[in-house]
């Protein structure tokens, strides 16, 4: 019996459509004794699935289907409005390239900051620092401020830190799209290695070919609802049939 690493149960996530609500409006509504009119939509609705140890899962769906929201819920950035999510061990997300990188810090400082954000200890970062830099291939620029980096360099370093943080569960959102082909190949090799180590991967990408080659399992989201859960190539074929 495989060990569950991610357990998503009946998750609903609501977003409000209006954000520029002023304090005045709020007080007026409170004085009148009625709540502000509800203006929400469900980004996720009754989503349930489990991911076992060592599984590689692709979250698929067209724009606005709730993939990224789901990933953010799993990583803990967003809290679901209903249902529960439980994860096992350390979860690291590459939700967006270079989140947590500060442009005014050097590459070196950002490696430490980002490593610490992803839950690495000082010792772990010291030990893997050379490896991280070597993988990113930006040795010459490591003491340059990140704002002078090209987007490719930025991506390399960010990805490199994330894969070296050794999380039990690794969440990847649309990051393989950037970067040149040799680096993409290197990333894929690294992902294969993580798979081999039995780590759990959840990937979001619009590159359907890539996803169906990396992932065994695909979960299709449509308007916040899971409509298909099966082998990744089958789900991709289904999606293409809809287009």
């Amino acid at each position, binding site marked *: 019996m495989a*060990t*569950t690493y991610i*357990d998503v149960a009946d998750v609903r996530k609501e*977003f*409000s459509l209006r*954000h520029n609500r*002023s*304090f005045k409006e*709020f007080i007026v509504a409170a004085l009148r004794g009625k709540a502000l009119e509800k203006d929400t939509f469900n980004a996720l609705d009754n989503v349930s699935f489990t991911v076992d*140890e*060592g599984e590689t899962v692709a979250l698929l769906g067209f724009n606005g289907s709730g993939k990224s929201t789901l990933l*953010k*819920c*799993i*990583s*803990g*950035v*967003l*809290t679901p409005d209903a249902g*529960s*999510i*439980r*994860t*096992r*061990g*350390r*979860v690291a*997300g590459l*939700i*967006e390239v270079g*989140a*947590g990188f*500060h442009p*005014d*810090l050097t590459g070196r*400082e950002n490696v*430490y*900051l980002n490593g*610490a*954000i*992803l839950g690495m*200890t*000082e010792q772990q970062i010291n030990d893997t620092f050379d490896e991280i830099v070597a993988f990113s291939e930006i040795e010459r620029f490591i003491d340059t401020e990140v704002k002078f980096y090209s987007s490719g360099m930025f991506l390399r370093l960010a990805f490199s830190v994330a894969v070296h943080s050794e999380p*039990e569960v690794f969440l990847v959102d649309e990051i393989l799209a950037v970067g040149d082909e040799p680096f993409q190949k290197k990333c894929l090799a690294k992902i294969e290695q993580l798979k*081999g*180590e*039995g*780590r759990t991967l959840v990937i979001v990408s619009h590159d359907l070919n890539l996803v169906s080659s990396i992932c065994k399992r695909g979960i299709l989201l449509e308007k916040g609802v899971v409509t298909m859960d099966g082998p990744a190539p089958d789900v991709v074929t289904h999606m293409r049939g809809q287009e």
Partner: protein
Amino acid sequence: MSDNVASQLALPPMTTPGSGRGLLDVLHRRFLLKLIVRKELRVRYRGSALGMAWTYVKPLVQFGVFFLAMGVFMGLRATVPNYAVYLFSGVVVMNFFGEAFGNATRSLVWNAPLINKIYLPRELFPVSSLWVGAVHFFPQLLVLIIATFITGWRPNILELLAFVLGFLIVAVFSLGLGMLFGAVNVYFRDAENLVELIIMVATWISPVLYHWNLVYNNFPVWLYNIYMLNPLTSSVNLFHYAFWYSSIGRPVTLPGGAQTLVPDMWAWAGAGLGIAVAMLFIGQLVFRKLERRFAQEL
């Protein structure tokens, strides 16, 4: 299965992502806290030639203005001996409060890109603001100590303890308020403006520029009691006791006849500490309640 991650380590338990233990989590992420503080300092002084020297310039100018207006023009120098040290020991408290509280209030909005994308204990940001405040406080404290030492400061143990207690009160109180207003600020940016107002008023509703006796003489007793319950007032009183009292030779009364120290100073300080701790609890409570929607509101 020998090369398996799970079998190498004991199997970690299932946890709910995004649910931390508040300020306790910050204690376990000290390394990250240190890096965030370093980042804040770096970002604050980027492209600035004077850099950290600004921490000396600002309070000294402020001190000069107050000294001239209140000490010389208004003549407070005559009734409060060694007025310069009296004034500066209160000013450093208020600067620390303003710095820590103001930055903590804005810290979550400033770090929106991080909060939006990666989960980490969000209490880290107000706490790092407090730390940055302390980094700016200690150089000023050094200036204060040198100034008061030259004018004859010879503190005893109790006076040094008063400093520690005074510092603790203002630190705990700023963190509590900072977490409360910082969390509210995510939803209503009005909080920022309100906080600026509070910081501006704070200097005047504590005995920083004038002697406590003026309040006692002009206020009814109940209002005086409320005035003394302000934790910042206790902090300022304790700082006066620590840095000013011995420099003027610990007299019972001042030249004008007023009693030098606040009656029941330690009791008021105890009450101030109690209120500050209560504020920290309230701040943490509200923070945890509002934290759930931080990422989508920022």
